[in-house]
């Protein structure tokens, strides 16, 4: 997993400690801790994982092993507007691939990347469970249903 280097400020270390303490520094709560930490930092840089390992008294390797196992966790900050294309079956049979290709073409990035200006990042996700609206695209919390390749440009224009 590619990553970037950061230096944690004292207040950020304190935040991690606070998160860990809210789960009683219980190693079994690692995934809940990671969820909260990612919720706070937006992603999970190595330094955050090291601090969590220290607090929960488990090895960093283990934390990293868990982070890299679950697709929800990321070590790279997402774009200001994270775009997720649903590639669940319903969306797939209704043309999600073409929609994805169009996003890739317009933004000129691959899945997992962020645009150079940091505005958009592109990812795929499993079914969001809105199969009735397939194909579905999520930008941030907003769900766009019945997206066609032609409509991609208009959707992106909402964010410019």
């Amino acid at each position: 997993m590619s990553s970037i280097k950061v230096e944690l400020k004292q207040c950020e270390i304190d935040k991690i400690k606070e998160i860990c303490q809210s789960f009683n520094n219980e190693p079994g709560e690692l995934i809940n801790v990671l969820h909260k930490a990612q919720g706070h930092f937006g992603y999970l840089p190595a330094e955050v994982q090291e601090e969590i390992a220290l607090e929960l008294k488990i090895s960093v390797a283990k934390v990293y092993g868990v982070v890299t196992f679950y697709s929800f966790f990321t070590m790279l900050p997402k774009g200001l507007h994270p775009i997720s294309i649903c590639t669940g079956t319903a969306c797939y049979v209704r043309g999600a691939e073409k929609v994805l290709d169009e996003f890739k073409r317009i933004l000129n990035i691959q899945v997992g990347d962020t645009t150079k200006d940091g505005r958009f990042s592109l990812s795929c996700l499993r079914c969001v469970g809105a199969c009735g609206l397939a194909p579905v695209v999520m930008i941030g919390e907003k769900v766009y249903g019945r997206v066609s390749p032609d409509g991609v440009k208009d959707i992106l224009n909402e964010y410019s």
Partner: protein
Amino acid sequence: METIKLTIDNKPVEVPKGTSILHAAKGAGIHIPTLCFFKLGDMPIENRPGGCRVCVVEVQGRRNLAPACVTDVTEGMVVKTHTIRALNARKTVLELILSDHPTDCLVCAKSGNCELQTLAQDMGIRKLHYEGEQSHYREDTSPAIIRDMDKCVRCRRCEMMCNDVQTVGVLSGINRGFMSVVSPAFEMNLDHSVCTYCGQCVAVCPTGALTEVDHTNAVIRALADPSKTVVVQTAPAVRAALGEEFGLKPGTLVTGKMVAALRQLGFDYVFDTDFAADLTIMEEGTELLNRLTQFLAGDKTKLPILTSCCPAWVKFFEHQFPEMMDIPSTAKSPQQMFGPIAKEYFAKKIGVERKDMVVVSIMPCLAKKYECSRDEFSHNGSPDVDYSISTRELANLIKQANLEFDALADEDFDKPLGESTGASVIFGTTGGVIEAAVRTAYELHTGNKLPKVDFEELRGLAGIRSATIDFGGLPINIGIAHGLGNARKLLEDIREGKSTFHAIEIMACPGGCIGGGGQPLHHGDFSILKARQEALYREDAGKPIRKSHENPFIIELYKEFLGKPLKLIYINPSHPEE
């Protein structure tokens, strides 16, 4: 005991409840191939993730094939291990594993000793029907261990050793699916991690994914350089295991043949790390007595004292218990005591300049490679010990030199650094260092001769052992741990103030150095470790002198060169340049 009756390949078998199909079959003379499965001798540790699926067998009435290593037998079970269905699955699975494995067997460090290669041979794989993308990872070279994860078969044995046995926690399964692999956090290099280089991961790796950094070529170059005086030291545990590499029975002592081979290889002086081990006892024993005196005077922080001759163990507590750095002995390890003695004392004696002397050590260990690269063990950029090679590498050197090892006539070590006592020989096994220390400390403390030098109560292979030795009315509590996981338990007791030990011996590897990461692979068979251990005790029993402080050359060394003990300390290393 409750037993279970079943049939395996039409043979009726009766085994205790809780036995796996694999073990039940083995008892019936049926060898089911395995890959990820690994059982570490008598220790309650078994690696059976059921991941490789090479051991699948057909069980009547079961929908799918059963992994023999992790499926317990049940009453009336009918097992078939070589039906066409099982064979096809097993072969296909193996082909799949091979399809994600480099095919550079001819030049692989593990060739000939690779479990995957053997399986492919045994199963008669001649063609890969399923080829495709292979998973690639960055190669990682550290001072002691090379990780080439392209060759990893995800058996997870290394992960088990690193986490469950050693509790070092450097390795973990990372990623998911095709790209999953075992790695340190953030795929960092081992030398940025808290790895102790104990080499137990290397010792259990079935393939060439984890190997030692090979220094044989550097040694060959040094031997070929006429301007260099090349001195070799051999660790105690090597002589009890080297023979296995040449087909000799485990436990065959090959001290004489080994010395002969080293001479044939062209080493100018063949010395013994055992000599330095005697020296260690003098240093560590003296320190123990000093601290005991302070302890008895009321300074309870002075004990326990922990042995410090195992570099993996030293690195372990440096990372994991930094706040307890004043507990271990300050004595250097035998390897690192030998280095300066050779380069400063012996070199002067024979009129060779330090820069023209090369010290090579033969070690059962991979951490020793790292240890001799530590900054504090070099002098103006020149290391005290130049190269440390493992027992396996030595065997390789001997083979390269076209020597028929078995036919070599026994020879003796050179003097003066080749002379040693029985006490130093047993450094190679768990319990040996502390027994050697007790032999010396007892006599120095009480001023009396020991009635009996063998301390059976300190011997054995249990992971944590303890004994109380009567030092002339003063009961001394001794603790012994081998395997870093066991060591951790004793250390945590100390931290919590629960420990009642006065002295503790710790060895990083299960069994001590006889089970070191650089030894011939024992594949988890503890009978091999036991045989090696017995060989060392045999050598000890046969020695005319069995106490370190009685080694005449040690006495001479102090008289001529060192003066009093406590010169060869670990922290703030000072070179004996007087």
